[in-house]
């Protein structure tokens, strides 16, 4: 397929082509779907200009700020974007995600938002120790700090207060859930669970990006219901839902990811699931006749 076919059906919007994006492009080509690769770093949208020729844009931009604005810009130009700008805006922000999950009645870790680092100590006292201080926007477990007691919390918050961005001074704190050495990643596409994996780590963080190992996880009814409801709560058509197991075995929803990374998923499930093909199936369903 040429890089820019005439009247492509799908735009794959990305600035960084990883193994996941290569799988997606291979899946599009296998189905002979015309697509164009759009480098989101070069994307310019002029208000009032004609809409691009694509029927749908798959938003795979790795930076959540650019992912949100690119989706907004393309939607303004009349393009159907998956995931939508609204979904990206919720998923990229941990507080907004927590609010959406809470309002949907889903079990989540006890969570609070403090408007200043000083107020965060009171928020932590309310949530209880041990707790976690997280940046509002960020992923792969970066800059997330477990705080076992008020003394450590005060030290971490001093550093938070010294960060330059005003947004950094709005502090998201959360109960540190006592759990096994693993969490659960569930991929949901269009309200359907594609599969689930455990992410196991020796440290307290279980992000694949920080070295967690993935293993197959059985999809129980409870797990499937929680994951589907969570994806719906943030309006994500393609979602990576992270669940934690409490000591009593009950599930809590930690977060929902909009730019799902699935290489670790494939390492655990092999050929049993083809996430890229499932995503492409969803795009085909959304592009219409």
């Amino acid at each position, binding site marked *: 397929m040429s*890089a820019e076919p005439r009247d492509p059906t799908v735009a794959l919007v*990305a*600035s*960084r*082509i*990883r193994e996941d*994006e*290569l799988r997606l*492009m291979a899946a599009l080509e296998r189905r002979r779907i015309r697509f164009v*690769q759009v*480098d989101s770093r070069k994307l310019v949208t002029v208000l009032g200009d004609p809409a691009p020729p694509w029927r749908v844009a798959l938003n795979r931009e*790795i*930076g*959540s*700020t650019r992912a949100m604005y690119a989706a907004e810009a393309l939607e303004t130009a009349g393009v159907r974007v998956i995931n939508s700008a609204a979904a990206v805006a919720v998923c*990229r922000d941990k507080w907004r995600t927590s609010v959406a999950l809470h309002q949907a009645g889903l079990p989540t870790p006890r969570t609070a938002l403090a408007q200043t680092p000083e107020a965060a100590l009171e928020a932590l006292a309310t949530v209880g120790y041990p707790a976690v201080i997280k940046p509002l*926007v*960020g*992923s*792969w477990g*970066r800059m997330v700090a477990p705080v076992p007691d008020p003394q450590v919390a005060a030290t971490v918050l001093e550093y938070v207060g010294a960060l330059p961005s005003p947004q950094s001074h709005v502090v998201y704190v959360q109960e540190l859930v006592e759990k096994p050495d693993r969490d659960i990643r569930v991929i949901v596409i269009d309200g359907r669970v594609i599969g689930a994996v455990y992410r196991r780590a020796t440290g307290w963080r279980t992000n694949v*990006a920080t070295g967690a190992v993935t293993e197959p996880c059985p999809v129980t009814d409870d797990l499937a219901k929680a994951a589907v409801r969570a994806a719906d709560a943030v309006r994500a058509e393609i979602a*990576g839902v992270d669940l934690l197991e409490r000591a009593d075995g009950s599930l809590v929803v930690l977060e929902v*990811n*909009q*730019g*799902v*990374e699935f290489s670790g998923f494939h390492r655990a499930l092999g050929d049993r699931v083809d996430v890229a093909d499932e995503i492409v199936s969803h795009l085909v369903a959304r592009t219409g006749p």
Partner: protein
Amino acid sequence: MEAVMDKCPVCSTKVSLGGAPRMGEIIQCGDCRSELEVVGISPLSFAPAPEVEEDWGE
């Protein structure tokens, strides 16, 4: 598909790619382990991949 080749912009070692490289594809130099981005296809060319930004990730 024949392998295509360019020099690593960091250490100048020759880096070859089999198959059909994609614009924006991220690869690793086998010698210096630098992350490289494919910035040209014909002829193949690399640039150092962008550094991870604060809001990157899922």
